[in-house]
């Protein structure tokens, strides 16, 4: 049972992270590019996007899970289990990821961007060849934080029958006072977070050519 929960947790985290990045990464790029100091300033888009992202980020995840039940049912056919949990996870994490990506990209030296502009690079080339590669170590670190945060959210979804280790911890550990199961699931979560965070750190350090 615990092995199954472990796999479910990993499944939710990995799939949700991937999908959340598909949405969050472009949003983060748009935030940076349309900023008033960005390479294609556009105050309107920047403001609207910023407000939407803040709005989504301020909704507590549990409330988001419940509020999204109809949407989840529409997409996955159920509101229970790991696959169903992916829907609110993606929607909850994408704005968070957008902000993480934004802050990573903003670390890129303005001078390097100006150099690329002076060589006649188009905004698309600057994003693709300057912003993303130069921010790579920081983006990887951000990804480690985002993925572990998503894992935490996925455990929270256990309270509404989301599946995975969080679900087990609540059903057995909390409702049935089986403290041993509670401890094992929590320990497993701790291990996963440690491993992911460490992996991210290592990858970031390995890919950083600034030393």
């Amino acid at each position, binding site marked *: 049972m615990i092995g199954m929960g472990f796999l479910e947790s990993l499944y939710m985290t990995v799939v949700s992270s991937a999908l959340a990045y598909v949405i969050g990464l472009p949003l983060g790029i748009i935030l940076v590019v349309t900023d008033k100091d960005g390479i294609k300033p556009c105050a309107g888009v920047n403001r609207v996007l910023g407000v939407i992202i803040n709005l989504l980020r301020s909704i507590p995840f549990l409330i988001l899970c419940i509020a999204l039940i109809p949407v989840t049912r529409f997409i996955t056919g159920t509101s229970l289990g790991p696959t169903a949990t992916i829907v609110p996870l993606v929607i909850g994490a994408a704005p968070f990821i957008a902000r993480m990506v934004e802050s990573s990209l903003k670390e890129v030296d303005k001078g390097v961007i100006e150099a690329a502009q002076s060589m006649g*690079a188009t905004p698309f080339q600057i994003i693709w060849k300057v912003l993303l590669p130069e921010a790579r170590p920081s983006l990887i670190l951000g990804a480690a934080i985002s993925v572990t945060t998503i894992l935490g959210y996925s455990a929270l979804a256990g309270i509404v029958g989301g599946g995975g280790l969080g679900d087990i911890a609540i059903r057995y550990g909390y409702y049935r006072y089986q403290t041993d199961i509670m401890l094992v699931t929590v320990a497993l979560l701790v291990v996963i977070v440690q491993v992911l965070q460490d992996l991210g750190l290592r990858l970031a350090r390995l890919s950083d050519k*600034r030393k």
Partner: protein
Amino acid sequence: MGTGTPLIKIRGLSKVFRTEEGEVSVLEDINLDIMEGEIFGIIGMSGAGKSTLVRCINFLEKPTKGTVYFDNQDLSRLSQKELYKVRQSIGMIFQQFNLLMQRNVLKNVCFPMEIAGVNKKDAEKRAYELLELVGLSDKAKAYPSQLSGGQKQRVAIARALASNPKVIICDEATSALDPSTTKGILALLKDINKRLGITIVMITHEMSVVEEICQRVAIIDSRHIAEVGYVQDIFTKPTTEAARRLVFPEGRREDHFTSKRCCRIVFDGSSAFEPVIANMVLEFRQAVNIIFANTKNIDGKAFGQIVIQLPEDELTAEKMITYLRNRGLTVEEVHNFV
């Protein structure tokens, strides 16, 4: 050396920035011709508007008024796409080098060619040639963080040359380097200008850089071009306050001299042999006080300057000035110097 046809023509260029505190005028009515093949200096104190002027030359900053002609194309009439194309023929190097830190040296030099759509094999071949030219062939696989400041600037120069530019604009390119590294970089730029015939525009606040390699210079002072001309002419006969400040970079004021008249004498190579001052002192039997002296190498020619304090006696002072002028020296009275 310049061929006499202008490569860059700046016409009636003004730039006003809109900020929250209102409008700030940074450049007013700038007119300049930069000739093909010359090394042209633009010098000014920080805050004079130099960096804005650079950014206007390649239209990274659109001028509020006026325009720039590059190679006879009016940049204000070009589409965004055409502008990208023009920028590819303007190489640029910067004070902070601005290399891509996550790419190795070879890939940095390839970068402008990637942008221009050159295929990878040709780009790498050319990048190796350019690294050879700047003397860094052995660093092709190194990352910028492993290089010294001078080496980074050499990579930046190779990168600027990669797209076969007509001009290289150097924005305070030596300001972050120590004097001996600066000399090396300036020599390299001079060599590139001579061998490849590429026009070079040096933007700087250091007169020594201008003296070392520029043929002509524009002095920019509080939003305007104060003076344009050959470096040696401006050095011998500065006509504006801004120029004078740059020619005497030491510009110190020593109050106990203020009661007396001072003269600045400029020697060029031909007059440096005769001991003029010594002879003058012997002839007038009056001492003069030498308060400042140095020699400069302006584009390969030796120039010297001396500031002397004339005797109290008006008549002798007047005669001394005539004496010096008769010996073909440039003499001007300086009032604000001491």
